[in-house]
């Protein structure tokens, strides 16, 4: 087994693992759980992307992974923001007594 083959196999494995996390998206029960699973999708997706990119020597894939990593927090931030604002109270968490 050559290294590219091994990396591809690892990508398949990571993808399958991520797919397992899909169950948490399906089941919830809280939205936070679903968002977490999505975050996991992000990390796993980046890993799979890197494995694929190095295996197939496609350097541009690293830039795709870079973009994903940079924006990984973005959707989650939108989630947290909306979760706190939907409670209706002050989303500010102050340090003062």
């Amino acid at each position, binding site marked *: 087994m050559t290294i590219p083959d091994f990396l591809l196999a690892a990508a398949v494995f990571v993808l399958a693992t991520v797919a397992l996390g899909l169950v948490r998206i399906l089941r919830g029960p809280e939205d936070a759980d679903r968002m977490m699973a999505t975050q996991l999708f992000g990390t796993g997706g980046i890993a799979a992307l890197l494995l694929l990119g190095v295996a197939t020597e496609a350097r541009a894939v690293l830039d795709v992974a*870079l973009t994903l990593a940079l924006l990984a927090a973005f959707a989650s931030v939108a989630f947290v923001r909306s979760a706190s604002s939907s409670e209706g109270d002050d989303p500010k*968490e102050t340090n003062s007594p």
Partner: protein
Amino acid sequence: MKNVSVRAAMARGAGFFGFWLVLIGTDPVDGVAGLFAAAAATGASLRLLPPGGGRLRYAVLARLALRFGQESIMGGVDVARRVLSVRLPLRPGFLVYPVRLPPGPACNTFGALTSVLPGTLPAGVDDHGALLYHCLDVEQPVAAQLAIDEGLLIRALGGTHDDT
């Protein structure tokens, strides 16, 4: 104060330009664009995170990074151990850690660093400004580890050990 800003700007600019070179390579035409990108990033950085007074201590920073690496491995192993154990050994609960760092970026950095510590996760602050940690196992000596981390971080950021 002026001196501090200039120094911080130079250091950050150099850092961003270095990052640009890493991304794109060393073609001179790309370098010109890189200067612009570094300038834009430095401007934004100085506005968003004005430089503080202290000088970074790189030796301590390196020690902190090393410790961070170790901790993240231990943290991962710890979770994996619990996850794959048949009995699922968990004693979850909250721990109040009275943090010495003032609220602000440094304190947040501390929170981020310690979120990889085995079994701990910062989950907000209580009414007295202390950090609330959620622990997988409340019986672990978490507070002592946190104190070591905090001491290192304070020294790395140029503070003294005793500014409680």
